[in-house]
């Protein structure tokens, strides 16, 4: 069992913010092992990781590194001791280049002057390690997709002097290809004797990499045992306190009429000639590699970016969408938004005609696409954004304000906000999704990552939209809460909404989707029906270089 000399020994570590978020955590970490750290959202995983790497001091307890007392004063200090961390939230500087970001804090210099050649070759080497051969080190980070940014964040911390590497949900945004690059690196590191702390909600990954697993619940270490022989069910049981069955076999949902269809949608080279149809009551999944244009596609459908070409058509529907949270919404939303949705559409119309007449005729508008999210929302669409930090949340504002953002009409009368109504609505959302917080007035920025994601989701839960676009909706969400989100999605589908979900987690797609489309290099290259797919086939479609794959099957 564990070597006599543990690399890192943690003793009775505790952390209080206003509440206690970590208490009495005692564990050891051995050289060359991968310790998985798991637990529900807000269990304290990131907090523990941050303490290890000097980002925040513990309130109680102490640590020993190779026998020496270890109390890092800063991240810098921790890095000097060889502890590095990939943060859950991206910490890149978008205005700097890839190379500069990779070597931030230790840029090669001579008397203060940057040595660009050295910088780029060092960056090149680091990028190569993690499979980003094609990325130009001089590209500004602002131009990269989130997944690539996540890869950068990892690359940045793959250093030779590392003794312990903490990875806080590194794969939340990654697809299998990137994930396998990462795992290769992990294998190399552990072979060198580096210890890895691996935080993740993807249980199948833990099985692949971890030697031991530690489970946190409510800030306490509830379990610590070897991974070998542990079944997923047992793990979930320990994390959540009860078992969650999200792996059940599900039959294909009965697809209703077409709600929305897109024809030849495209923008630049990021998205090319995408045609798809969304049916009421079913969930269409989109798989693809990082940077394959999935996010771009959703943004085009939603009018967040303007499509260069193509056309979106909305079809009428007889069955009205009921307001999802009757307790709060019935009283109010009738006046404003709900009514629009209840009336339904008169006939299949191209977006052009759907556009409110107020649109100035002078503005050039590609026929048949949404020119702004406002239009899309008015037409009954919703989007759960991928990058919650920059596009989803008002980080400094309370949960209350964030959760009600997309349907202010529902909590206002004559332009005046009804505080009581809002509080009730928010309370019900917080309960329904199990958002772990002090109270609804807590700024979202203080929540754990998974809970932030739930707030973004909550926003679309109470709005009666017909088509919900979801971009990595379960990013960083724990199994228990994931099951709750899935339950909500099921309910939405049952209500007759059309759902379009992008996810990098193939298992999730295979569980939830009725059809799965695969994108590659901006094109929708394949479309599988439930029952026709296999993990193998999906991956093959995502990776293939040639167009010899099955042509898109559009019904």
């Amino acid at each position, binding site marked *: 069992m564990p070597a006599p000399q543990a690399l890192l020994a943690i003793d009775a570590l505790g952390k209080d913010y206003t509440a206690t978020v970590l208490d009495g955590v005692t564990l050891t970490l051995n050289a060359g092992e991968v310790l998985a750290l798991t637990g529900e959202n807000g269990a304290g995983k990131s907090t523990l990781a941050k303490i290890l790497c000097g980002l925040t001091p513990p309130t109680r307890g102490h640590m020993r590194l190779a026998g020496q007392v270890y109390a890092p004063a800063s991240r810098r200090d921790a890095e000097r001791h060889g502890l590095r961390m990939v943060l859950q939230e991206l910490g890149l500087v978008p205005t700097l280049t890839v190379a500069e970001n990779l070597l931030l804090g230790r840029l090669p210099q001579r008397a203060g002057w940057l040595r660009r050649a050295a910088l780029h070759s060092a960056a090149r080497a680091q990028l190569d390690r993690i499979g980003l051969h094609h990325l130009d080190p001089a590209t500004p980070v602002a131009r990269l997709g989130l997944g690539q940014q996540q890869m950068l964040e990892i690359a940045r911390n793959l250093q030779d002097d590392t003794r312990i590497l903490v990875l806080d949900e590194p794969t939340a945004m990654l697809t299998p290809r990137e994930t396998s690059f990462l795992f290769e690196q992990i294998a190399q590191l552990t072979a060198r004797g580096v210890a890895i702390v691996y935080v993740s909600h993807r249980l199948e990954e833990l099985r692949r990499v971890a030697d031991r697993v530690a489970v946190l619940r409510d800030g306490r270490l509830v379990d610590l045992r070897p991974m070998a022989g542990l079944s997923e069910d047992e793990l979930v049981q320990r994390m959540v306190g009860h078992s969650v069955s999200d792996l059940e076999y599900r039959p294909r949902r009965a697809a209703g009429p077409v709600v929305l269809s897109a024809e030849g949608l495209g923008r630049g080279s990021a998205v090319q000639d995408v045609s798809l149809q969304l049916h009421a009551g079913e969930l269409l999944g989109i798989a693809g590699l990082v940077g394959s244009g999935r996010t771009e596609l959703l943004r085009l459908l939603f009018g967040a970016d303007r499509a260069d070409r193509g056309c979106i058509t909305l079809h009428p529907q007889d069955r009205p969408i009921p307001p999802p949270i009757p307790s709060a919404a019935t009283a109010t939303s009738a006046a404003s938004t709900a009514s629009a949705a209840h009336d339904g559409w008169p006939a299949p119309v191209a977006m052009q005609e759907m556009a409110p007449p107020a649109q100035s005729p002078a503005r050039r508008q590609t026929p048949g696409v949404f020119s702004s999210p406002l239009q899309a929302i008015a037409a009954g669409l919703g989007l759960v954004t991928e990058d919650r930090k920059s596009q989803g949340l008002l980080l400094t504002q309370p949960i209350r304000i964030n959760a009600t953002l997309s349907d*202010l*009409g529902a909590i206002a009368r004559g332009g005046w906000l009804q505080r009581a109504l809002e509080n009730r609505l928010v309370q019900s959302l917080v309960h329904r999704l199990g958002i772990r917080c002090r109270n609804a007035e807590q700024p979202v920025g203080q929540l754990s990552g998974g809970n932030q994601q739930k707030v973004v989701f909550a926003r679309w839960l109470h709005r009666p939209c017909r088509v919900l676009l979801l971009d990595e909706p379960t990013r960083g969400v724990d199994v228990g809460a994931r099951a709750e989100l899935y339950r909500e999605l099921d309910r939405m589908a049952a209500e007759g909404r059309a759902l379009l979900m992008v996810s990098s987690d193939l298992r999730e797609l295979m569980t939830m989707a009725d059809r799965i489309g695969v994108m590659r290099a901006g094109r929708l290259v394949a479309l599988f029906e439930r029952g026709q797919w296999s993990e193998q086939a999906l991956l093959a479609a995502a990776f293939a270089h040639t167009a010899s794959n099955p042509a898109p099957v559009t019904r």
Partner: protein
Amino acid sequence: MNDPAPASASARAGTRAPAPLWRSQLATYLGLGAVLAGMVALFSSLSEYFWSAETFITIANEIPALAVMAVGMSFVLIIAGIDLSVGSVMALAAAISAAAIVQWGWTVPAAAALALATGLVCGTITGTIAVAWRLPSFIVSLGMLEAVRGSAYLVTDSRTQYVGDAISWLSAPFLGGIFGGISVAFMLALLLVIVAQLVLSHTVFGRCVVGIGTNEEAMRLAGVDPRPIRITVFAVTGLLAGLAGLMQSARLEAADPNAGAGIELQVIAAVVIGGTSLMGGRGSVVNTAFGVLIIAVLEAGLAQVGASEPSKRIITGGVIVAAVIIDTLRQRMDAANR
């Protein structure tokens, strides 16, 4: 499907009830209130007549123009913009209404409406240009500062226009003086502060302003078009600057085309002292009013004490910074205790 386990649900969901809203609200006024009280105490000890109803009434009647502009500026800063043109707009509105009364023989209500309309138009132009080309409002309003000032010179032929007491009812005692000599303008400014605070914290519009100031892209994706809201904020600020111009000429009985030169920094200072962030997304109109009071009391006190010009400047600079430091420290203490 099945119920979430009750235990885990309660553990996850909000546990503690939030402190009553009014209490946390009140607490935010403590820091600035203390600064203000300290200043009043100091000046009262330095100058024989400072602690008198007359002094306070005088101060009260001096602040409406500044207060009204600061209300508008609060919204502008919260939406992460800035408006440097308020001083010029104020002068132009005063000048145009004076010209309307004196030269063109308009009735007073018509001239007053014209002043407000002038402000509204100026603000709308600033907002529209900034929004249409997505330019920083700093530079657009700087351009407006120059152009509008030029227009004010043009309208008045660079001469102060004597208006007389046509609109002096604005600066006359409120309700014939039942509140001492407190003027109508002061009451109007007070009303505006209250209404603006309510709009900011209790309307959809206010919520959108805060949201856009915090993260415009997130608001856009949540289905709020930021453009009309931005324009409205600038338009209203222009309107309020126009009102300030009216108040000013009611008090001076004259419209000076140089009026309000450089006042934009004072207005912004008042708002920032009140804790509104220049980066947007955070602010309170009531706190802005405190900021206005601090600036006004400081100015009045220094004048009564008869401080020399250099010491006036040095003290003013010091107090501005000190006020913000004290308020910041208090806020941090407050945040730590929550």
